[in-house]
């Protein structure tokens, strides 16, 4: 079993010019966790995910790699978080991409499961090795369905 047999070949995607507001709508509307971002030629650029949304509502000082690891001294109201998110609604999604490890169509299933486990992610983009285009996306659910199907 490889990525090609597991993946959804027509995932919902975002384009680089889409705004944070559009991405947030889609994520909340469809209850998706990850939206791959692809350019006009279909090249995979990164993933906008629920974690991107979390980051959008946090101060930059917390997100820095040497940033604060304890912010329990900050007492913010939901209104403040909403305000921060509001200020970033019109930014392009490309400002907030997560660069995940990707799979290739020929990547074996076990390797993909390991990528999910180590990357703490529930879906893995499948990218063509030669041209960098997004071929599909393998989600946690696809893999589990297959595994259960074999035993059913």
């Amino acid at each position, binding site marked *: 079993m490889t990525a090609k047999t597991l993946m959804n070949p027509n995932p919902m995607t975002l384009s680089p010019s889409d705004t944070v507001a559009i991405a947030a709508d889609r994520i909340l509307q469809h209850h998706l966790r990850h939206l791959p971002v692809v350019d006009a030629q279909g090249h995979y650029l990164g993933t906008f995910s629920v974690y991107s949304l979390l980051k959008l509502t946090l*101060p*930059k*000082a*917390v997100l*820095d*790699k*040497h*940033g*604060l690891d*304890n*912010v*329990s*001294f*900050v*007492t*913010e109201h939901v209104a*403040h978080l909403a305000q921060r998110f509001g200020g970033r609604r019109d930014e392009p999604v490309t400002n907030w991409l997560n660069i995940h490890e990707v799979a290739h169509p020929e990547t074996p299933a076990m390797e993909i499961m390991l990528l999910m486990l180590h990357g703490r992610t529930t879906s893995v983009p499948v990218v063509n090795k030669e041209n960098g285009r997004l071929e599909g996306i393998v989600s946690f659910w696809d893999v589990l369905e297959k595994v259960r199907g074999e035993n059913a």
Partner: protein
Amino acid sequence: MHGSETQLASTVIFGLNPMWYAAILFILTYVVIMTERINRAIVSLLAAGLMIFGGVLNQEAAVRGVDFNTIGLLIGMMVIVAITRQSGVFQYVAIWSAKKVNASPWGILAMLSVVTAVVSALLDNVTTVLLIVPVALLITEELKVKAYPYLFSMIVFSNIGGTATLIGDPPNIMIGSAVGLTFNDFVVNLAPVVAVVIAATLVPVYVIWGRNLKAAAEDRQRVMDFNEREAITDPALLKKCLAVIGVVVLSFVFARSLGLEAATIGLFGAAALLLLQCWPHNADEQSKLVTHAFTEAEWITIFFFVGLFIVVHGLDSTGALKLLADHLLALTGGDLTATAMTILWSSAVLSAFVDNIPFVATMIPLIKAMAPTFGGPEGLMPLWWALSLGACLGGNGTLIGASANLVVAGFAERAGQPIRFVPFLLMAFPMMLMSVAICTVYLYWRYL
């Protein structure tokens, strides 16, 4: 680094004169360190090896060149800081100080500048900015003011504050160790002038930025709502840390009457704090905690020092530095004032562009060689203060003048408000010259 007690070979590898071989190797080492293409620890260790392979030193002589008092003190303090920083006490102080001035943007800028200076005097500068800058970034984000003035000031004041004490900046540790100066000697001789420099540097910071900073009342309230007590992550650990740091500082103060050297105090303090932190835990947990504390020490800096001490000792043992000292004395006519001023200003300008650690490592034996001209080691005191002030404050001249500068620049870059080389130079270099001018007056008035 102690004179030239080594038996010298008359020729080294390839039949070269040892002085030439050592000098060429030394200059190459400097050049490669300055290009920053290869990690400085690798460069200095390779160069140390080449001093030995080339026959300038044998291993025994090389090891004698390493100042283990400096190394021990550095490691001891690094371990103590690695444990203490986990307690959140430095964030507590930063937030507390911001609230003391009612979260006014200029008040916070001034307070955080002074806090940075004071913390830098007790910790190394890189650690200080790593602890304070994230708080500053959070506060500026909440106040919706530019972070640039704050980040700029953290750079400048960390270098100024570090100048005040034995443990504030590596050049002071090296000078103190090589000359046998105590914590008190540094505080008594340098802290007064550092206090003046802090006050004086706040003036341009106010004129350029401070007076124009404005924040909305509602945003200031958000900072006032910070609960600094929550920044303390581990109150029990904090008490242990403060107790150990208190005893360590007291031991530094009484080091001379106790007959203790700095490395003993630093390493014993580290061991005591590790004991206090570890004893309630089982063996497995203990080794995790100890591993963490040791990993946090900056081994690149430590090994850089080890290699550098050997390289400089190699050069010194060939008599090259004595020769250089004689030339310098000929230039200044053996006049103490002229020599002190030359050392102060050249250290400041050079340290603005090159790493001050190798510079100071080289200057120490060079200045020691001047002792006969100035009536023995006692007569050299003004020169040591000149070296310390110049080398530490010079780091403020450019963005590459000290490692803390680059750490802050990294934060600025990631926060989307980059600090560029030339704009920084245009503001910081004149401020650095002003601080050295203050030191010139101070040295002249007090010692010359």
